[in-house]
Structures are given as structure tokens and as C-alpha cells.
């Protein structure tokens, strides 16, 4: 195959792959909302994009070589936008009577859809772990920099100002519990974790940037 011919095939193929990323991104945004950034930091999250793009490219190439379609760009658009349904739907090719002993249909696509579900679950798990890691990492930095007592004083002011009594009581209980943690290092991290829940994001960032520790 000449380079120009290869480009003529791969160009539309790449378009199909890029178009397949759109539903993948929408799907992740719908599933994870504002936490999608944690998914995008996980290898499984990128795996989902790679799977979508790769599968769309393969499907496009299969259609191109098997059917020799005349308008490659149109084929690429159609494949890119419709292919995602194959990965996500339990489309059934051979349907058996469902009995308690044979509850699943004999569909390869059903298996594919289940595998895709598993991949999404794995991405959620990865995102949760990354998020938990980030929380504790920030808490450890805050504790190390400022110590439990100065952080607790700031958090206490904020809790006193909370309007909702139920929330205020709950946060106060958490802070009181954090302050009676026996191990000093644990205590600092525990207070910092309460601070992460109570204080505005901008304040936390300012505390992290500060050169001098907070005053007691």
C-alpha cells in the first residue's frame, strides 16, 4: 500500500476514533460528574478512551476493507457515532429461552457490554482511591506544616459560624473526636481531614502555600 493510500484509509479511521471519544467523555462526565478529573488521572480511565478509539478504528477498517465503501469520510462519521452502542448494549444475536438455570443470553455482545460495565466500575474504584489519596495527602501536609492545635482553632471558628444546626453538631463531634486522638501524628491528620470538609477550598490552598505556620 502506498503512503498516500494508507493516509486515505487512516485519515477517516482516525476521525472515527476521535468521534468515538465524544460519547466516552459524555459517559464519564455523566457517571462521575465533577469527580471526572480523578478518572482522567487513572490508567483505567485512559484505558476506556483507548478501548473506544481502538474499537472504532478497527470497526471502520473492517467496514472499509470488507465492503469497500465509496465515501470513507461519511463511513467514518457513521462508525464513530454509532459504534459506541455495540460496546454498551446487550444486543442479542442468538436468543435462548431464559430459565433459572440459564439466565444469560448467548450473545457475545452481551459479554462485551458486561466487560465494559466492569471497566467503568474499575474506573470508579480507581477514581475513588485517587480522591482518597489526595485527601489524605493534603491532610498530611497541613498537619505537618501547621500542627493540630492551630488548625483546630481555625476549624472551630468556622464550625461556630455554620448556619445548619445538624451540620454544626456533626462537624463539632468530628472535631472533638479528632482532638482526643491519642497519637499526636494521627491527631494532626484527623483535624486536617475535618478542616478539608469544613473550610473553603481557597482557604485550604492558602494554608498549603503559607510559608509560616498558622498561629495557635
Amino acid at each position, binding site marked *: 500500500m502506498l503512503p498516500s493510500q494508507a493516509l486515505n484509509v487512516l485519515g477517516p479511521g482516525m476521525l472515527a476514533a476521535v468521534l468515538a471519544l465524544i460519547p466516552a467523555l459524555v459517559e464519564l462526565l455523566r457517571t462521575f460528574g465533577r469527580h471526572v478529573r480523578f478518572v482522567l488521572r487513572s490508567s483505567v480511565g485512559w484505558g476506556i478512551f483507548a478501548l473506544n478509539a481502538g474499537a472504532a478504528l478497527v470497526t471502520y477498517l473492517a467496514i472499509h476493507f470488507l465492503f469497500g465503501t465509496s465515501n470513507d469520510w461519511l463511513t467514518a462519521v457513521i462508525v464513530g457515532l454509532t459504534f459506541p452502542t455495540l460496546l454498551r448494549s446487550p444486543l442479542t444475536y442468538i436468543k435462548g429461552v431464559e430459565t433459572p438455570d440459564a439466565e444469560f443470553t448467548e450473545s457475545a455482545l452481551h459479554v462485551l457490554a458486561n466487560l465494559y460495565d466492569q471497566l467503568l466500575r474499575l474506573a*470508579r*474504584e480507581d*477514581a*475513588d*482511591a485517587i*480522591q*482518597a*489519596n489526595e*485527601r*489524605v*495527602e493534603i*491532610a*498530611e501536609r497541613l498537619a505537618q506544616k501547621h500542627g493540630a492545635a492551630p488548625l483546630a482553632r481555625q476549624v472551630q471558628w468556622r464550625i461556630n459560624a455554620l448556619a445548619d444546626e445538624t451540620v454544626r453538631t456533626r462537624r463539632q*463531634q*468530628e472535631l472533638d*473526636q*479528632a482532638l*482526643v*486522638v*491519642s*497519637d499526636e*501524628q*494521627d491527631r494532626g*491528620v*484527623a483535624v486536617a*481531614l*475535618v478542616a478539608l470538609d469544613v473550610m473553603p477550598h481557597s482557604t485550604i490552598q492558602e494554608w498549603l502555600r503559607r510559608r509560616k505556620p498558622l498561629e495557635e
Partner: protein
Amino acid sequence: MAEETLRLGTDDQELLEQVQVLGAATAIELAVKTLRQPDEVRPKLEWLYQAGLLKVRHRNKGYERNIYLLTPEGRQYATRVNRRIDE
């Protein structure tokens, strides 16, 4: 295969529910959320891990090394309120 029901205390149940709420968490965070001491929570988390209800991701750096997540079985227990062995 018959499903064996595990005997879970209120504390264990509460920990599982908190892990479900947070998605993943360290022992200290779970201690704060359940209003307990970290040293009280760590052995319980270890037990839940041994029982197959939690899984652990290890952090490469930092003071608190373990992050706990629910296993599929743990997720089932976390959604059952006041589950007991004798039910």
C-alpha cells in the same frame, strides 16, 4: 454454592457504610467519620479485609499507608441495614 452470612457488629456495619459513602478512605478518615479512635478502627478494618469485605490499595508515600475500598461482597453488606447472622 451456598452463601455464608457473616457475623457483623454495628461498628463493622458502620465502617462499611462509611467506606461506601466516601468511595475509598484511610483508617484515620474512617475514625473521624465514625467518631472513634484510629487505633480502634484499624483492627476492625483489618478484620473486614481478612473477611473479604474490604480491599486495600497501598500508598507509595505518606504516613497513612492503606486506602480501603469495598469489595463487591462488602458493597452488599454495606447496603444491608442491621444485618445479623441470626436473621
